[in-house]
Structure formats: structure tokens, C-alpha cells
């Protein structure tokens, strides 16, 4: 029941939709905000993956980043929830029709300050969802306070010096047993898009920590969340190629011995071509070691840091029907037969 674009000369994807069908309201964020480029890559990824917008839900908490679901996927159901509480809403929402794909957007304050508890628990439960943290180290809507990801020693205009150790979103994700963990940089549109596609193919909680500079409050070149720093210190872990399920991998494209291929839950593959480091993204200990050394080296390592495609998701554990989602069940399915009332009374004394 998809509504096809009727305009001539508009390019359509395999489900007959144009890129416009994936857009949202015009953004109200600042010009140049990293979040806008991430929104654009969400639109592009969904369009290119031929996702029907009605098959997706989008969620967020509160903050600049959390406003952004209004700016993509207008035809998807959305929930702009409470500050730091998006994970719980998403957890419950996934029970409605668990066949849908979920994509959530949060910020560093929403996730690592007010929302740290729920962030940890949604990973523990492996809720099948893409969880994007648009990470800029600073509060935007309340005008420039430090978030918990701001680096020690960062100096901001009205806040002075940050004396506290930062939270590393990716290390937190590893510690909590997340089954898909990646880091990227809003300035690297292609990588962001490929990682979103891979994350959407993952059956479990996929954490994307995307450094997304705040051009208004935290974009000095020496700030760890600025465009300047990102461009200067970015080190892609690998050349990342996402291959959808329906496409064959042309192995000849990749010289032998230089690539690692991971098959995701829905049959899609990611092909990781070695750049400098030998790296196995299916090893937890390698991931943790890598993160520690990247910190020592002061580099912004980007790419797929860890993936375990085989863990059951929350909705697997819940043993829901593959055919009939919970929210299509009717009274016949949900209300016990009349005779069962005798059983209820007999259970009492």
C-alpha cells in the first residue's frame, strides 16, 4: 500500500518511492550542524535500502539531536519522548509490531548524562534498534553547557574549563554488551550512510557514536568534537562496504587477504578492507584494546568496532509470533475463553 510518486523524471527505488518520500520537515537546527548531515544520510540509507517508511519507527529523547527525527522519514511513526528516556519507550514500542525496523536518535547529554542508565539497559536487553548518538560534547538547546563526553581540559565560552574525565560512548557500549558498535564522524557522509545501512540489517542493538560538531557552541579546532579536529585526527579503521542481501559480493573487487566479511542477520554483508591495522571486529577483547590505544594515540578511530550478529534480540527472547505482531491481535486472541473464569476462581481458595 505504498503511495508512489507521480511526478515524471523522478528517480524511484525498488519500492517505487522517491527520495522525497523519505524526507521530513525542514530542519530548524543551525546551518552547518552535524546533525543535519546525519539526517540526510538516514534519508539516503533508507531510500537506498528500499525500506518502506511505514515499516520503520523513529524515536528520540530531548535535545537538538532529538529534534531531528522530525526532519526525516515523515511517513514513519515517530516518538519524540523524554530527556534520557528514549530507550525505555523504544523497548516497549518494539513489542507492538516487532517486524518493524527502529531507528533512534539521541545526543551525548541525552544518552550519557541524564540517560546513562537507560542507555546501558537497552544494550543489555539487545533491543533490535539502531541507536545513533549525535555526539558534540555540549548542550545546544540550553546554550552551551558541558556534556559528559566533553574532554577534560575543554574550555567553553560561558562554562570555563571542564575538569572532569569524559565518558566514552563506545567503551560504555562495549562494557554493556552491545552487539553492534561503531563510531563515525558527521564529516564522513559515506561512512555514516554505510554504517546506518549495516546497523539497520543488524538484529539487535546497534550503537552508532557519531561525532557531530556543534557549530555554535563547540567547534574550535582543538576541541575533540569539532570539524577541524575530526578531519585532522580521523583514522578509518577499514574501508567499509555494505552489501545488501540481494546483491552479490564481487570478491574480485577485494584482493585476497586484505578483507574481512561479516554476514549480518538479514543476509546483508559488510566487507571491511584493511587500511593500516589488522583488526577483527568480532573480537571483544580486540575492540577494547583498540579503544584504549586510540585514546592514547589521540586519534578519532572510525568504523565498525564490534559486531556479534548471532545474539538473540529482545523480541526473539520474548518469543513473539513471526507472522502476527502483537498489535494486530484481537479479542479472540487476547481474552481467555469464558470457561477459564472457573479456573481463575478455582486457583483461589
Amino acid at each position, binding site marked *: 500500500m505504498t503511495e508512489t510518486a507521480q511526478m515524471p523524471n523522478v528517480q524511484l527505488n525498488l519500492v517505487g518511492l522517491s527520495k522525497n518520500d523519505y524526507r521530513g520537515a525542514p530542519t530548524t537546527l543551525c546551518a552547518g550542524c552535524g546533525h543535519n548531515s546525519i539526517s540526510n544520510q538516514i534519508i539516503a540509507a533508507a531510500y537506498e535500502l528500499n525500506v518502506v517508511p511505514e515499516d520503520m519507527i523513529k524515536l528520540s529523547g530531548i535535545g537538538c539531536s532529538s529534534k531531528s527525527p522530525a526532519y526525516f522519514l515523515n*511517513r514513519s511513526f515517530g516518538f519524540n519522548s523524554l530527556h534520557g*528516556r528514549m530507550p525505555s519507550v523504544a*523497548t516497549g514500542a518494539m513489542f507492538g509490531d516487532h517486524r518493524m525496523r527502529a531507528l533512534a536518535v539521541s545526543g551525548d547529554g541525552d544518552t550519557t548524562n541524564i540517560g546513562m542508565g537507560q542507555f546501558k539497559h537497552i544494550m543489555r536487553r539487545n533491543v533490535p534498534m539502531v541507536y545513533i548518538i549525535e555526539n558534540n560534547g555540549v548542550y545546544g538547546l540550553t546554550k552551551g553547557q558541558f556534556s559528559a563526553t566533553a574532554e577534560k581540559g575543554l574550555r567553553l565560552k560561558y562554562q570555563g574549563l571542564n575538569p572532569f574525565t569524559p565518558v566514552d560512548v563506545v567503551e560504555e557500549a562495549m562494557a554493556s554488551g552491545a552487539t553492534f558498535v561503531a563510531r563515525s564522524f558527521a564529516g564522513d557522509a559515506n561512512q555514516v550512510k554505510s554504517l546506518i545501512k549495516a546497523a539497520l540489517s543488524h538484529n539487535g542493538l546497534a550503537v552508532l557514536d557519531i561525532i557531530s560538531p556543534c557549530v555554535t557552541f563547540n567547534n574550535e579546532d582543538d576541541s575533540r568534537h569539532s570539524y577541524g579536529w575530526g578531519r585532522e585526527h580521523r583514522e578509518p579503521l577499514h574501508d567499509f562496504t555494505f552489501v545488501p542481501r540481494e546483491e552479490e559480493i564481487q570478491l574480485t573487487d577485494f584482493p585476497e587477504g586484505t578483507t574481512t566479511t561479516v554476514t549480518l542477520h538479514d543476509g546483508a554483508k559488510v566487507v571491511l578492507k584493511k587500511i593500516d591495522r589488522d583488526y577483527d571486529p568480532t573480537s571483544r577483547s580486540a575492540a577494547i584494546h583498540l579503544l584504549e590505544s586510540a585514546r592514547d594515540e589521540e586519534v578519532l578511530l572510525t568504523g565498525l568496532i564490534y559486531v556479534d550478529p548471532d545474539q538473540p534480540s529482545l523480541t526473539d527472547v520474548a518469543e513473539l509470533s513471526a507472522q502476527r505482531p502483537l*498489535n494486530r491481535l484481537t*479479542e479472540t486472541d487476547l481474552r481467555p475463553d469464558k470457561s477459564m473464569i472457573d479456573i481463575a476462581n478455582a486457583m*483461589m481458595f
Partner: protein
Amino acid sequence: MATPQVQETQQQGTGGKAVVNDFSMTVATKNGSGSQTSNLTLLRALFKMGIPVSGKNLFPSNIQGLPTWYTIRLSKKGYLARRAEHEIVVAMNEDTFVEDLASVAPGGAFYYGDHLKFEITRTDISVYSFPAKKFAKESDAPATLRDYVANMAYVGVLVYMLDIDMAKIREALEYHFDGKQKPIAINMGVIEAAYEWTKANLTKTDPFRVEAMDETKDFIMADGNTAGALGSIFGGLQFMAWYPITPASSVAEGVSHNIAKFRDKEGQEGKTYGIVQAEDELAAIGMAVGAGWSGLRAMTSTSGPGISLMTEFVGMAAYAEIPVVIWDVQRVGPSTGLPTRTSQGDIISTYLLGHGDTKHILLLPGSASECFEFGWKSFDIAERMQTPVFVMSDLDLGMNTWMTKPFEYPNTPMDRGKLLWEEDLEKIADWQRYKDVDGDGIPYRTAPGNKHPRSAWFARGTGHNDNAKYSERSDDWERNMARLKKKFETAIEYMPKPEVQGDGAKIGIISYGSTDAAILEARDYLAENGIASDYLRLRAVPFTSEVKSFIDAHERIYVVEMNRDGQMHMILRLEYPEHTMKMISLAKHDGMPLTAKWVQEAVELQEK
């Protein structure tokens, strides 16, 4: 069975005559000693003898060691409220021995384990000691269970001394141990040994005993929390998230332990429900709201501290118009307060929970069977009204075992409210999420998974227009808030009506929840003293028209409740300011279930 000989005594108040089926007995033990099985066995056996009984567990916030009391009231007249007095006390705890001895009503009976070495200073009561530990030691109970079955000794003693039917004791144990013969045999062994010892060694000098009646066959015994859980299952619960808290945990556990039995059908592919134990109450309500948004019958259960944590989400759910059911099994607050004592202290804060202008629907169950009824009905109301619905139970109603009417199968089909699917949207050209099409304030909604290209909407706690788009416009805000007010007024027609008793008296009593038993009894005593009263038991807020009619029709209204400030009294005065002067608050907040005597005296004080 041998009937103990009642000896002629000159005891106060009884005139030497037997007192049958009309007294209270309290067992004093230590928490965690396994006395609950003994107490429930006595309670159930008496119930099966056809005698109206109620049992109340007065327990500390503790797992092991602190004093705990269980009080059973037998009432041939059918009174189920707690009495403050007890004629029989069984002392098993050295820490409270002295106060337990002092607490026996004059003319009463005091039983104690002979391992407790105390001087008996009272001469106005009958006193019996028995070898409390002997029978368990001599039984074939494994050493690890001996301390637990030891409490069956006082059951055996009381069976003989009160003339309780031993066959009913066995029936109670069969139920308790789900027919498992080994524990039944071990416990029965201790009871029978104690019985035989008592028969051979004790001479009864008090007048209290029991006699079979025929007053309980139309009832079951149930606690409100299990009843509410089962009602929710019959209501088609699809999602529950919860966080452990006394006294609400057994609502959620009642669901998770029983739902498969009622809802998993042979050959069915997949479950029809999801249950998550959340990391805290914020997450529990967040999950339930997420599930409600996605079109599920969603609920959570908690108590006052959890309600506090849920505040922000509840305000948002009311404003974004998301159905969800929240059980508040109230305990004494503020703060951690008295976590194992009962209260009706969350009424006003829950009614207005959230910042800005919020008002919520409160359902007020007055019995365990009404907990069952509101278990299913709350979902219908929440989905019809697209808003949070609170079921305001309390510790006494929720955790104690009550004689109650059997659960009745829902008498109305499920009401899913104004929920649109693809075929509905095909027929509607200009659906808007928050548009008041029907003039009742209730808009139409859709749920994720709906594949119609016009089905999606963006749920948000921020200001929005009819089309669920972000709006900071003053006119949008005012119009939406006015519609929500209208919706709350519409809710009145879906509220359970109050139960009204009596007709034509000058004074009226308004009460709600677990106070019911005390009010019913107190009205009899008041009538005996020449004060006729009518009684309205509230079953929901907002109030239906019957409430106003009742207030209109009486010269004075006593609002009886269990909190300090008279919270329902406040709401009634807000709703009916013209009647402020004639509504009098009678509020008690000692953490204990209300007694009829307190109600009677409080009214009489005013009426004199």
C-alpha cells in the same frame, strides 16, 4: 472430634458463656519464621467451615528476625474489618512477649511456647503454654525445615482448643502445597501431634470457640494483587513492564506467574504478551507508554515512590494521549515512609500527577473481586480515553487474603477505542491525530505497523496542533488544552458508578477502597446508637452524577479515608465548592487497616 469442655469461669464480659465465631486472634512471631503458612492454614480452614473470616498480616520491612503479627477475625455477622482488640493471642516471639501478654483483651486467652521463659503477671485471662518446638523435632521433617514446620504446633493447639475442623485444616494444606503429599504429611504430622498433646495436657478455661456455619459458600479467598493480575490477563494485557516494590510486586508477579496458563493456547505460534522487569520505575512506565503508543494494552504496577518517579512520563502520556494502565498499591508515605503499612495517601498527588494542568482517571477498587474487575476494565477505559488510567489499590487490599465474591467474566466486549487501521483510513480523507471529530474531545489514533501512507504521526510532549505537528502557537495550545479538558469530562460517562447504600438518612458517609468493611460495620453500630447513615462508596474519579446527588441529599457528609489531610475530601470540595461547609473529613493515617470502632467514634464525636 472431641469438643473441649468449657469450664465455668467468672471471666469479664462473657458471663461464662461460650463465645462462638465472634472474636479476634493474633499470632506474634518473627518475620521469616514460616508462620505465614500456619496463619493462612488457620484462616482458610475457618473459611471452609463456613465462618466469615478476615486475616491481616501486620509485617515489618524486613526479611528475617523482626516482629510480625497476623490477626484473624471471625465474625458470625460477616464483619471483615480489622479490630484493634484481640481476645486470643499466641506468643511465639520473645522480643514482643511482654507487650503481647499485655495486649490480650480482659477475659481472653494467651497461648505461648514454653521455650519462652517469662513471668505471667495477668490473672484476668486464661493462660496456656505448650512445647512449641517438641513436635517439629519429633516429626520426620528434614532438619532444615524444622523451624518452619514448628509453627504448625500452635495450629494443632488451636484446632483442639477452638474446636476447628481438622478435615478443613487438611484441605487448607492441600491447597497451600498444591497437593504435594510430602509437605502436607509433614505439616499435618506436627498439627496432629500438637493436637493430641493439647488434648492430654491442657484444660480449657476460656470461652472462645468456633462452630461451622454456612456463610462463605458464595465467596472465594483472594488477595487484591493476584485478583488484579488475573483481571488484567482477562482484559487482554499485551505488555507489562514493572519494577519490584512492596506492596505492588505481587501484581506483576501474579501476571507473570499465571498468564501462560490463561493465554498460551495449544498450537499457537508466539506469545500474545510481553513482560519486562525494568531497571527502575522510570523505565517501567517508559516501556509501558512505548507499548501503549504502539497499540498494545500496556500496564505497569508500583507504589507511591514509583508513582513519584513516573510523574514526568505520566504527564507526557496524558498530553500525547497514550493509553496505559498504572496500578498504585498504596503504602504509607511520604518518602520511604512505612513501606509495609497501608495507606490511601497517593490520591491527590496521583489525581494531579505531572506538571502543568493534568488530571487523571482513578479507579478505586473496594474488594479483591473489584480488583479483578478493574484489572480488565481499566484497559477499556485507557484505550477509549487514550490516557493513563490509575487503579488505586492499597497494601491491605492488595496483599491480604480477603473473603470476596468470585471473579466474574468480563460482561462487555473489549473496547479498543478510536483506533484506526488501514481499511479505516481508506474511508477517511483528512484524518488528523488530535482533531476532535466527534465533539467528545477524544481524537482518533493510529499505531505503528499501520501500512497506510497517511497513518503515521509524530508523538511528542511538545506543543502540537491537530495534525500532531510541532506548534508553539498560543491558539493551538489553548485549543488543545480545552479539548483535553472536554475529554476528561467525557470520561465521566465511562466511569464505574459508585455503590450507594441506605436511603433517607440525614448523614451520609463517603469512602472508597479498603475502608469498605470498616464503614459497613460502623454503620450498624451507629444505627444501634440511634445514628442512621447512608453510604456512598466511590469507585472512580472523576465523579459521576450520583456523587453530587448523594451530597445534595444529605445534611452532613463524612468523608472517611486513610491519610492525614483528607485527600478525597479535598477533591470533593474542589468539585462541589457549594457543599464545602457540609463535608467533614474523617481521616486516619496510622498505617493500619481502618477499624469500625474508629469510624463509629469519629462520627459520633461530630454528631454529639
